[in-house]
């Protein structure tokens, strides 16, 4: 066998090797692209478990947990520690494998045969090599499709990161609200206990009946029960956040920073948010990429409709009489029974399916954005109503009942009851503020990135420590600009500004002071 006899394999193998060399994915599986993409949507990943060693991850985690956690800290911890991030990275690997596979030819087939003379002569043999011709022909197109699909996979990964961050943010606000709610319920319990203790003292002196005492004691017991429920909710909310931050049950010694802030000054324009969502949602981009891939696949299927299995090869044989032969071979499937209809139909249906998914997602996004905007609007309105009307009135009632109790017009049970009702109103206020921030998280999730108005979020926190002074300030201050972030303890019962009916405006109603004869 001369070397020239085998040179026919070269045109077959070399292009294939060259093509294979072009079909690679980045060593980071496109993770940096994903990071850059979510960063462009306002979510920095700094760093993730995919970026650092376990040792560095543990060190960063320990450092963050040592300080009271702010909203961004919780998300940083989650993106650093959550196994979901590793899962997202693994998904990128799976998509990369598809790209690698699409960029490589199927291996050539080597065949051989031996023949042993049954009468005379020597043994004969032959061998040949064949390569799927269509695979070779379609290789560039398949690689292009695979690379496009990898882009889709990266967008999907980015969307998953954004979803993960939004989920952590949601749990963060729930945990803060639950903590502050538990603090308020503890205050209500404290007030009820004070009333019960006072009632006991009066009962012991013989001034209160057992029935009157029991009314106060049962109220105190109920308040303690409510506080216990709130404490349980607080602990559950903490553990949920702990889980979402990728921390184990042994890593719960962290504190939440401050409390919920009051709503920002100016919300985003609704139409702007709709436009932003339509332009930047990564899951929509992934769906659009999927559609593009399917459309390209359909076009490819159409252009190759009449091409079926085709193999090129080269054979060499020596028969028993020692005659030798060598030469190329070709095998072609004949489109007699099947002319590619099913392949076309499948490709067409997959385009339609991808289009439907894009259309459905557009509608979903539009409504998700609007729904979150409505939630935000109503929560904000509740915050405003509670902060400027209900709470100042509750505070005024506390002050007035306190004044009347000090004047011997009421017993102490009334101001204590009024104080509990004020705390309950603060609970409603807290709930409204919590709903506001949860709505912002939902809106950011719907828009697909941080909200433009996030820039207005300041450092001032409206924790229970800081909104207590707001409640206890005279109405004129409480209803003016909003809360002070300073914690200064409660005022002594300052009388509410005198309110006189308009009909009496001509009166010189002087505040009372003692009158001497």
């Amino acid at each position, binding site marked *: 066998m001369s070397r020239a006899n085998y040179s026919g394999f070269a045109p077959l193998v070399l292009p294939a090797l060259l093509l294979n060399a072009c079909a690679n994915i980045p060593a980071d599986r496109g993770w940096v692209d994903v990071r850059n993409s979510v960063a462009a949507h306002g979510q920095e990943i700094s760093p993730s478990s995919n970026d650092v060693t376990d040792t560095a991850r543990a060190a960063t985690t320990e450092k963050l947990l040592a300080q009271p956690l702010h909203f961004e800290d919780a998300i940083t911890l989650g993106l650093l520690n959550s196994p979901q991030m590793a899962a997202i990275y693994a998904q990128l690997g799976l998509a990369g494998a598809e790209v690698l596979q699409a960029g490589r030819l199927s291996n050539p087939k080597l065949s051989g045969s031996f023949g042993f003379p049954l009468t005379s002569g020597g043994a004969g043999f032959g061998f040949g090599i064949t390569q799927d011709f269509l695979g070779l022909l379609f290789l560039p197109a398949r690689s292009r499709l695979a690379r496009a699909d990898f882009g889709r996979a990266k967008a999907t990964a980015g969307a998953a990161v954004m979803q993960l961050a939004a989920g952590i943010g949601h749990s963060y606000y729930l945990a803060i609200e639950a903590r502050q709610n538990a603090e308020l319920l503890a205050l209500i319990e404290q007030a009820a206990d*004070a009333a019960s203790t006072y009632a006991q003292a009066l009962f012991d*002196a013989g001034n209160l009946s057992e029935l009157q005492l029991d009314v106060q004691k049962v109220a105190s017991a109920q308040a303690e029960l409510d506080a216990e429920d709130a404490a349980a909710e607080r602990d559950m909310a903490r553990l949920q956040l702990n889980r979402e931050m990728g921390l184990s049950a042994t890593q719960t010694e962290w504190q939440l920073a401050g409390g919920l802030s009051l709503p920002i000054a100016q919300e985003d324009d609704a139409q702007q948010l709709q436009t932003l969502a339509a332009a930047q949602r990564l899951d929509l981009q992934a769906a659009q990429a999927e559609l593009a891939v399917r459309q390209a696949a359909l076009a490819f299927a159409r252009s190759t409709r009449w091409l079926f299995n085709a193999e090129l090869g080269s054979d060499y044989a020596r028969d028993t009489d020692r005659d030798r032969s060598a030469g190329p071979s070709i095998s072609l499937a004949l489109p007699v029974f099947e002319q590619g209809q099913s392949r076309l139909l499948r490709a067409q249906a997959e385009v339609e399916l991808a289009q439907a998914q894009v259309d459905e997602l557009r509608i979903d996004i539009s409504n998700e954005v609007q729904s979150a905007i409505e939630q935000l609007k109503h929560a904000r309105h509740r915050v405003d109503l509670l902060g400027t009307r209900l709470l100042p009135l509750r505070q005024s009632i506390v002050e007035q009942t306190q004044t009347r109790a000090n004047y011997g017009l009421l017993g102490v049970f009334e101001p204590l009851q009024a104080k509990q009702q004020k705390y309950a109103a603060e609970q409603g206020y807290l709930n409204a503020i919590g709903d506001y921030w949860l709505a912002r998280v939902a809106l950011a999730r719907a828009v697909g990135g941080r909200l433009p108005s996030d820039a207005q979020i300041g450092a001032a926190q409206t924790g229970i420590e800081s909104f207590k002074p707001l409640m206890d300030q005279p109405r004129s201050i409480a209803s003016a600009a909003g809360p002070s972030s300073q914690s200064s303890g409660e005022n*002594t019962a300052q009388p509410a500004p005198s309110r006189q009916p308009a009909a009496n405006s001509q009166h010189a109603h002087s505040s009372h002071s003692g009158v001497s004869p």
Partner: protein
Amino acid sequence: MENLVPNPAAPKPAGNRAPVQTPNGRSLPYRLVNGVKEFHLTAEEIDHEFAPGCTAKCWGYNGSTPGPTIEAVEGDRVRILVSNHLREPTTIHWHGLLLPNGMDGVSGLNQAPIKPGETWAYEFTLRQAGTHMYHPHADELVQMAFGMMGLFIIHPKASADEPAIDRDYAMLLHNWALHPGTYRPDPAVMLDFDLWTFNSKIYPATAPLLARTGERVRLRIGNLSMWNHPIHLHGHRFWVTGSDGDRWPRSAWIPEVTHIIGVGQTRDFEFIADNPGDWALHCHMVHHTMNAMGHSVPNPVGAKLAEADAKIRSVLPGNMSMGSDGMSEMADMAGMMQGPPNTVPMMSGNGSFGSIEMGGMFTVLKVRDDLAADDTRDPGWYRHPPGTQAKLVSFDPQFALGFARDKPSDS
């Protein structure tokens, strides 16, 4: 303190009769028209001050509640013009007077109501003497609750008033549902009133009554409130000498120190002011000598409140748990604390020895040796002659007179 100068326009008493003084009030002037004494009352809404720090929109006559005291003499022909400046009809009933049926003032029964803007004339001859009253008999519940009332005093003909009266005071008792923080009485209340008044004033805004030692004093009291009032005078024994049934025969006089004046009744007390000093004069229903107070406040007396108070203060920093030793500290704190708007402390007033702890139907009779007959100025607090005043003898809580303290036996 208010200067009790009589209204210069008040009718001059006949002969040597002392003028009627209506503490915190005045008598109504009249003009003589063809032998008829003609008075004019205007029913209207007014701004009334019960005491500094407590005012209200009330209804009265000629700018005040009670309306001015009408004084006339038995046998007089009087014409009383009544103008209605209210926004609803009214009438006036001449309480206790013997007069023609058509002059009795019961709306619908004796006359049509006096509509807003109208002026009606009541005219009759006085056939009796004594202390009487006037008040509306149309929407009576509201109009009286708002303060529409006055005294109608008919002096007997000359020489019927023996022995002669040196000082003649007239007061009208009333109650008001002026709830703390409000500025208009609540006419729906039947029992739980907030303010109890002498001539629509609460102590310490009630004017003192003055007398020179040895003077004969008459105190005319009418009750148009919704409670009976046992009026009690300290340091003197008085005789109940008359009522809305005129001056009683001397044999019917009752010597007392406390006399109940029922709703709708009048009584005349007479006494010799023979005991110099500052003497309390008040209703003996103790709640009637309080100003606005809570009637359903849990009783703290005797309770050990230290633990509860600490807990309450942690919730209500401004709380002041008082009363575990009694309510006296309420009066001590009254001037120091801010109360509800338009509300005075339930008890207040200071004398030369501290808090008087009174309110409502309380005033002071000031008897002095050196008071001129026509002097109506407040002489200030009484200076006790040596040896005439209670004094401190021990700070020892276990003080005893050298033998075991008298206690009930354990039987």
